[in-house]
């Protein structure tokens, strides 16, 4: 197991194996993901990078036939142990998906949905959360006069920032981004990347991307996956300029994938 950077380890993945029925999707994955930094998972389609991401907030639990061996600890707590409350875990580990998926509600209600779930109903408090979350997602200035409008009136890029704001509204420690820019145009993508840079001072970000240039641009460390295994894990700069594994070099130089 390798340890990187001066930042403290927040997520510790230990000898993780995951099976979808008979399919061995993740093989002996061990990683230490540092806090308050951006970690990127890269690799070709089907390499297990999204699967690993979804084990971190246990979204894989909902896929029938999934079996897990090994452990994942966040802040030292094994998130797969019996006494872990999945809802509380997901509150702490927010997620943004590939396609923007705002709820068919107003912009305001989209953000307020999470806090309300967790018992906040005070109007003033909600107003405050909505504003700070939208400010954090750099969307406030664009939507502050239209909070009652449907979330679907926003553009794709704005919708995705709304989804980020929605995730931030429940005050998570970790933000998972599952190819969060792949459905967006280049300018919206750039905005999300800039946003991620700003957020990493306060949140631990783990992003899956099929776009290695994006990983190179925004992440602090990068994990390269192939066929369910971690091939290489290093500082992003080092991994892209001087990879140790031949397969990594082949992938980042575009020879496959």
């Amino acid at each position, binding site marked *: 197991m390798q340890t990187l950077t001066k930042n403290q380890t927040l997520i510790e993945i230990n000898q993780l194996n995951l099976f979808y029925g008979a399919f061995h999707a993740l093989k002996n994955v061990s990683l230490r993901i540092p806090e308050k930094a951006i970690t990127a998972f890269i690799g070709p389609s089907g390499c297990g990078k999204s699967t690993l991401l979804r084990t971190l907030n246990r*979204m894989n639990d909902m896929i029938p036939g999934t079996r897990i061996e090994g452990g994942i600890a966040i802040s030292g707590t094994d998130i797969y142990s019996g006494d872990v409350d999945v809802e509380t875990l997901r509150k702490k580990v*927010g*997620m943004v998906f590939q396609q923007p998926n705002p709820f068919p509600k107003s912009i305001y209600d989209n953000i307020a949905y999470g806090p309300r*779930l967790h018992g906040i109903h005070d109007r003033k408090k909600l107003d405050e959360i909505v504003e700070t979350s939208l400010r954090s997602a750099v969307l406030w200035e664009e939507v502050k006069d239209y909070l009652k409008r449907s979330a679907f009136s926003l553009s794709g890029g704005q919708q995705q920032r709304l989804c980020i704001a929605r995730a931030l509204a429940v005050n998570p420690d970790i933000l998972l981004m599952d190819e969060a820019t792949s459905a967006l145009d280049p300018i919206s993508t750039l905005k999300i990347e800039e946003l991620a840079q700003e957020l990493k001072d306060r949140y631990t970000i783990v992003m899956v991307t099929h776009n290695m240039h994006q990983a190179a641009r925004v992440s602090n460390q990068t994990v390269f996956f192939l066929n369910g295994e971690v091939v290489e894990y290093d500082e992003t700069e080092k991994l892209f300029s001087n990879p140790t594994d031949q397969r990594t070099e082949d992938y980042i130089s575009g020879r496959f994938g």
Partner: protein
Amino acid sequence: MPNEALSTNSSKQLVDAAKRNHAFRNEKSHLMDKIMPVALFLCAALSIATTIGIVATLIGETYHFFEQVPFVDFITGTKWSPLIEPKSFGIWPLICGTLLITVIACLVAVPLGLASAIYLSEYAPKKVRNIVKPILEILAGVPTIVYGYFALSFITPMVRGIFADAGVFNALSAGIVVGIMIIPMVCSLSEDAMTAVPRSLRDGAYALGATRFEVALKIVVPAAFSGIVASAVLAFSRAIGETMIVTVAAGSTPKLTANPLESIQTMTAYIVQVSLGDTPHGSVEYGTIFAVGMTLFVITFLLNILAQYVARRFREEY
């Protein structure tokens, strides 16, 4: 000369052959393409013509009826006894009976149907759903006369066991059974609407720490709301139009009452009573069934418009 004739002839043949063999020549018969739209249009026109025919008959006969009975008496009267002297043509007792049955039926069917739909769409494993849903749809195929006897021989004794003053024929038993009959419809249509809610919306809510119940109640149901309302209103119309169960179990006493334990008569049951009886065709008494039918038609028609309005008003686009 013959040579020359031959050559012009053959060159003409060549041109013809070339014409026939060009790349876009007609390979298929287009006859079907010409016939089918006409045939299909006739099929569509037939059902429209039937509808127009029904409505026209209804309007014609109703108009005829109102030439003999004042419309105001019909629409404001509170006593319905068109067959017995002194005759009285106030429609309200029949409307009241119908609404009583329908409200009871919806109180039974909407909560139960919605709950089963939520179970099937959000909780049930695929295996269970694949078994339960077809069974539920079979329930919708049971002949209503069977439900009628079920009401009379099973529900009514139970109701009379609980409420001592309930009659042999009462609105409650019939209403409950009409409700049971329309549960599958509410369930099936609501479940379709809920299953159509995209997976990504559920994921978004789960990722925020929502429980299954919270996802069902606060994401899926609101997103499927227009479909759910549509299913409820359709069920309501179905209950209003239900005939056999109420004829068998609800009685034939037109009465302006809100007491579900009394015997009542619905509009449909009244029409059955007159159609089967020896009321002479063309008489005022016979004309009543068209007026009652027209009332039924107008009510269902208004309900459908209401349903469309409500569905549009509350639609959550996704």
